[in-house]
């Protein structure tokens, strides 16, 4: 029986579509705008005045150009650039344009109508140019920052995952002595965190210890000391607890050691949770900013997020802005950096999205 769509249902459906569309577009807009602003002409990004030239359409009887009334336009005489036989503009050895001259050596000029308009960038890029990207890709610091972020993400994720999987496996075993205590040890860190100042003092002390051990590269401090989350371990523990004990017993009867059981039974059987947790770790590593900035003293070791923020601070200072003479807007650089930092996430995002949904739903945990 095909049910008639009720009026109230229809209204609610329409409201849903409209509201979701509005909200989704609001979510998307800042990113689209960032892309547009990173590739648009300088004046559009700055919302400043843009000078436009227009051919003169009307001349009076003496051949003088006529300015249309009330148009706000003015006449300016522009020198004509020399062109070769193919129509390409001629430049001298220094790359400066060469202008046409008449027989007396005076420059040839044509009248043009000139006017200013306020440049408006709302959504789509205007007068696309890639100068900001070109500048950024030419910076060694940028590539350094990018590779540092990759370093932190890869090593950090591997380290966190190894620690979490081993710990969660041990915690999932009922026969573990003091199991309750170890669980509490873990969960307590979710209830009570020391806060940023004690954490800071602690990392400073750790840094001293690491340096004393000969590890002068602060990236290793970030990899090893940071990024662990009790929540992820609990997620893994719950999954491991759900692996049927018969399978484990069968493996032990076959002579498997503890590590073999973990590697050949538990890990393959909990692949999707492990993938989820790995993604949680990886995203938090990729996005990590605050402690990396505080702890990594060498500017060449800083990750991308820190570089973005440093550039933002630098390029929004008014004295830097008033000295800005580039062909692209200062803001374009910031937007280009933002775009470059989110591209990797956008590329893998469609594939990982379902895992995140899964992990969040598995988050309703119990002890």
């Amino acid at each position: 029986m095909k049910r008639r769509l009720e009026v109230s249902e229809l209204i609610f459906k329409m409201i849903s579509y409209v509201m979701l569309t509005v909200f989704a577009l609001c979510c998307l807009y800042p990113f689209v705008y960032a892309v547009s602003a990173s590739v648009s002409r300088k004046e559009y990004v700055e919302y400043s005045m843009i000078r436009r030239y227009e051919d003169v359409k009307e001349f009076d009887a003496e051949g003088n150009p006529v300015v249309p009334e009330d148009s706000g336009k003015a006449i300016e005489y522009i020198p004509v650039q020399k062109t070769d036989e193919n129509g390409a503009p001629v430049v001298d050895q220094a790359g400066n344009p060469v202008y046409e001259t008449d027989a007396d050596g005076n420059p040839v000029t044509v009248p043009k109508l000139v006017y200013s308009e306020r440049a408006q960038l709302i959504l789509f890029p205007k007068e696309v140019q890639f100068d900001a990207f070109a500048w950024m890709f030419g910076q060694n610091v940028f590539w350094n920052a990018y590779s540092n972020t990759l370093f932190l993400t890869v090593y950090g994720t591997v380290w966190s995952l190894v620690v979490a999987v081993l710990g969660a496996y041990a915690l999932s075993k009922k026969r573990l002595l003091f199991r309750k205590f170890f669980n509490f040890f873990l969960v307590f860190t979710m209830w009570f965190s020391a806060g940023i100042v004690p954490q800071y003092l602690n990392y400073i002390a750790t840094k001293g210890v690491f340096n004393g051990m000969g590890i002068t590269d602060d990236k290793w401090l970030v990899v090893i000391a940071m990024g662990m989350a009790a929540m992820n371990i609990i997620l893994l523990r719950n999954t491991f607890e759900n692996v049927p004990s018969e399978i484990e017993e069968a493996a032990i009867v076959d002579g498997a050691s503890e590590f073999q059981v973990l590697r050949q039974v538990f890990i393959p059987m909990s692949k999707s949770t492990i993938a989820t947790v790995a993604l949680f770790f990886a995203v938090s590593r990729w996005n990590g900013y605050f402690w990396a900035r505080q702890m990594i003293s060498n500017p060449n070791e800083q990750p991308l997020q820190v570089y973005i923020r440093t550039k933002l601070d630098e390029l929004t200072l008014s004295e830097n802005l008033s000295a800005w003479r580039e062909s692209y807007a200062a803001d374009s650089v910031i937007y280009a950096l933002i775009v470059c930092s989110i591209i990797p996430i956008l590329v893998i995002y469609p594939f990982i999205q379902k895992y995140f949904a899964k992990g969040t739903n598995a988050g309703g945990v119990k002890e």
Partner: protein
Amino acid sequence: MKVSGSDYLVLDKEKGVWVEDPEQIVRDDVEKHYWKHVGLTILKDWRLYIMLIPMILVFLFWRYFPMYELLGSFKVDDGAKAVAEQYFKGFSNFKALLIGSGTFGPYSSQFWQALRNTFLLSFYGLCFGFPMPIILALFFNEIRSNMARSVYQVLTYLPKFMSTVVMTSLVIMLVKAGSTASNTNPGIIAQLLVNLGIVPQEAAQAGLLNNPAYFRAIYQISGIWETAGYDSIVFFAAIIAISPTSYEAAQIDGANKWAQMRYVVLPSILSTIVIMLITRIGSMLSIGYEKVILLTEKQQNAVLTTAQVVSTFSWAVKADNPGIASAAEMMNNVVGMLLVIGANTIARKASNVSLY
């Protein structure tokens, strides 16, 4: 062997005499050799305990040692003595923060302001940020086409995966001040708000983030933008778990859409809502410092009157007076923990679901 004490004697009913209890002897034996037993168990499963070691060390070094540093809140700066001797000098730092007198006066007023801001940011988040994911989940449920729904979900979850730096950078750029030096206008969202008549032109030109009046709104709206889509996952999962027969039964009874919402959907997801609400109340005092610091770091100090939260306050005073900084965090965290434990207890009582 001990035979004194009635624990060890049981009445043998057949013979009518008191004899030693064999079970108690075993218990006694286990107690006597408890640590030997522990040692043997550990030895048998030594691999399991090896696996535990990295986790224990990571949490001990970088989660528990900082808690020891918190004891610095009891410390009164006295350079002459060794650090260990300076601990446990009493509650003068706490007193200075709460009451404040003399040189500590400014600290105290700043602390109370920070506490108030922390509470208000959370409270507004509860009022405006909390219902959004529920509403979104109800809307998602109306989209029957899987394809369309995935598109909406992908788009609304997206901001959650951006780093705090990217998110705050976008916010800063979109509402930034206009610059007279380079003759530029304010950021696009600030201009939009001016055109809509929501904020005055001068405020937008001076930068909305420099203005204490707008900080809370910016914080909440960017928070909704960032998390509402992602947070709706939990509620959406609760809604799709409702059996279709419930809707059918309601329809047969003549319930229209609103009645179905009221009598089928809401009661079914109420427990999820309650749990999420309680969790949220539990984490009221843990406002993320990263976002606040990033949003206010390079802005004018005036904005701190509404933006300073307890963690950023202690971060700001850590160089001048680490004892005061630690004491502020200590109070914040202890109250925060009590809230979490209280919330968890209530959740357990209310729904038999414990969060941790």
